[in-house]
């Protein structure tokens, strides 16, 4: 992966190249060994290139190869490896290079402007919505239903920004306190400045291989044992936003495939999607790593710290490392890989992690994408 940055000098193609090249090099392959490529990238309105997937082909190492772009909004970063898994598990290919790229800084004056265009063009856009509105609405509903005090949610931001201090690619690694979060600028109540992840430029890539080929390439492959994805209705105002049912559905699909019956006991650590601090908690519940409404207590009591009982976002997550949307999701897959291979350096979680789950989320609070990986 590349560094995650507010603004990169590299073009999107160059970012994709740096990540793809690093991934291919890291397993000792050459580009000729890559049989297929899948690209994950979120809205074209960030990079400012229509059919962005086509534009990125050469940087992603897909010259004259089978190549396509998958797209499930913010959930793309974890769907991309699922799509890659489909390439390999179908038996059509032995290898698939999965690349995710985002260059949000191209969008002016602020990438936020592009988010207006995700709303329904008849019933919502004329109201001038900001992206933060929908998250504030969801967060508030979640807080209301479970009577969650804001400080317990803020603890997530504190943890993730601290975890990111050990991540060499991090954009927003910081030592902050719960008070700092609570005192930060109110953007759209209950969302404050330090509750949210930044907009970022960056790319990440992974190489997937079939079982036989993987064993030839490395002695310590990390297996994709479960995949799940799910999309809820687009009529988001018709749903009760307090619980991400779509994440639960996606998780069930992945757990069933991985043979996981009791996720709370069988999952050693998790990288749920955390573009906002409350989302980490929301998603822990959707992933069935705790009961509904219980996640804030786990965070508050320190159980989700890197050395806690259930480490969550040991990477530093989107809140700490940064949020180049699709690349941020794939960064979580990278983290699972490094942690499960015990190559995470200063970020290495203690013990002997064997099974982990990564998840991303997106669209109008609609998409859940889940991958279970095992050492």
């Amino acid at each position, binding site marked *: 992966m590349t560094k995650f940055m507010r603004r990169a000098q590299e073009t999107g193609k*160059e970012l994709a190249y740096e990540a*793809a090249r690093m991934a291919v090099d890291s397993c000792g392959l050459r580009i000729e060994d890559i049989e297929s490529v899948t690209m994950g990238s979120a809205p074209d309105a960030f990079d400012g290139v229509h059919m962005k997937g086509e534009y990125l082909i050469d940087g992603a190492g897909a010259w004259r190869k089978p190549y396509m772009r998958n797209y499930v909004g913010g959930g793309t970063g974890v769907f991309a490896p699922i799509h890659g898994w489909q390439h390999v598990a179908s038996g059509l290919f032995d290898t698939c290079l999965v690349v995710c790229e985002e260059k949000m800084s191209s969008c002016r004056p602020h990438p936020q402007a592009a988010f207006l265009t995700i709303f329904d063009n008849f019933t919502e856009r004329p109201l001038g919505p900001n992206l933060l509105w929908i998250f504030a609405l969801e967060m508030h509903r979640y807080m209301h239903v479970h009577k969650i005090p804001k400080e317990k949610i803020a603890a997530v931001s504190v943890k993730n920004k601290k975890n990111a201090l050990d991540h060499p690619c991090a954009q927003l690694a910081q030592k902050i306190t719960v008070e700092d979060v609570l005192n930060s600028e109110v953007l759209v109540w209950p969302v404050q400045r330090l509750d949210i992840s930044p907009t970022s430029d960056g790319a990440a890539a992974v190489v997937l291989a079939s079982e036989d080929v993987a064993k030839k390439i490395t002695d310590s492959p990390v297996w994709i044992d479960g995949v799940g994805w799910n999309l809820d209705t687009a009529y988001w105002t018709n749903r009760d936003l307090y619980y991400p049912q779509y994440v639960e559905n996606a998780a069930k699909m992945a757990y069933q495939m991985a043979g996981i019956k009791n996720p709370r006991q069988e999952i050693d650590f998790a990288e749920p999607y955390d573009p906002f601090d409350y989302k980490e908690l929301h998603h822990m519940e959707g992933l069935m790593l705790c009961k509904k409404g219980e996640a804030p207590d786990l965070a508050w009591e320190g159980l989700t710290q890197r050395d806690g009982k259930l480490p969550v976002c040991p990477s530093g997550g989107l809140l700490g490392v940064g949020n180049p949307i699709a690349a941020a999701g794939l960064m979580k897959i990278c983290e699972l890989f490094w942690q499960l291979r015990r190559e995470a350096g200063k970020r290495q979680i203690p013990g002997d992690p064997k099974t982990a789950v990564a998840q991303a989320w997106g669209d109008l609070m609609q998409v859940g994408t889940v991958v279970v990986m095992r050492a």
Partner: protein
Amino acid sequence: MSFTERIQSPEDLKHVKGEMPVNFLYTAGIAGERFLREIKENAKILGVRCRKCHIVHVPPKIYCERCFERLYDWTELACEGQIETFTTCYFDADGNRLAEPQILAVIRLRGANEGIVHRVQEIRDRDVHVGMEVKAVFREKKDRIGSVLDIAYFKPIAP
């Protein structure tokens, strides 16, 4: 049964106008920065050679798309070359008819294996042909801003 009700009068048709209200600022990138600066400062066109594929890429890249190797061998190219293909456009990007048709061509500069896309002027389109020799006409240095448009156009090399 797909619908129980359909619009039956043009009076009932309803439309909403809108747009994607975004604008963009692109960086030229690592390779693009060096390429465009060289045009701006010195009116020179650079390419970059892949040691493995023996291809000279222009515009330059930091990588070879074919073998995916990182590229280091920057090389100055001639500002002239051959027309690989061309077309005469009668409309602008908005679909409005142009007062004067515009010729666009892919020009393979001498020393390069790829061709840059640019305008061809100072010639009637019926006189242009594939393989024709053309050369770059640069803007005045004071007018150059670090863009592909610092090359104003290509023109035929007088026989």
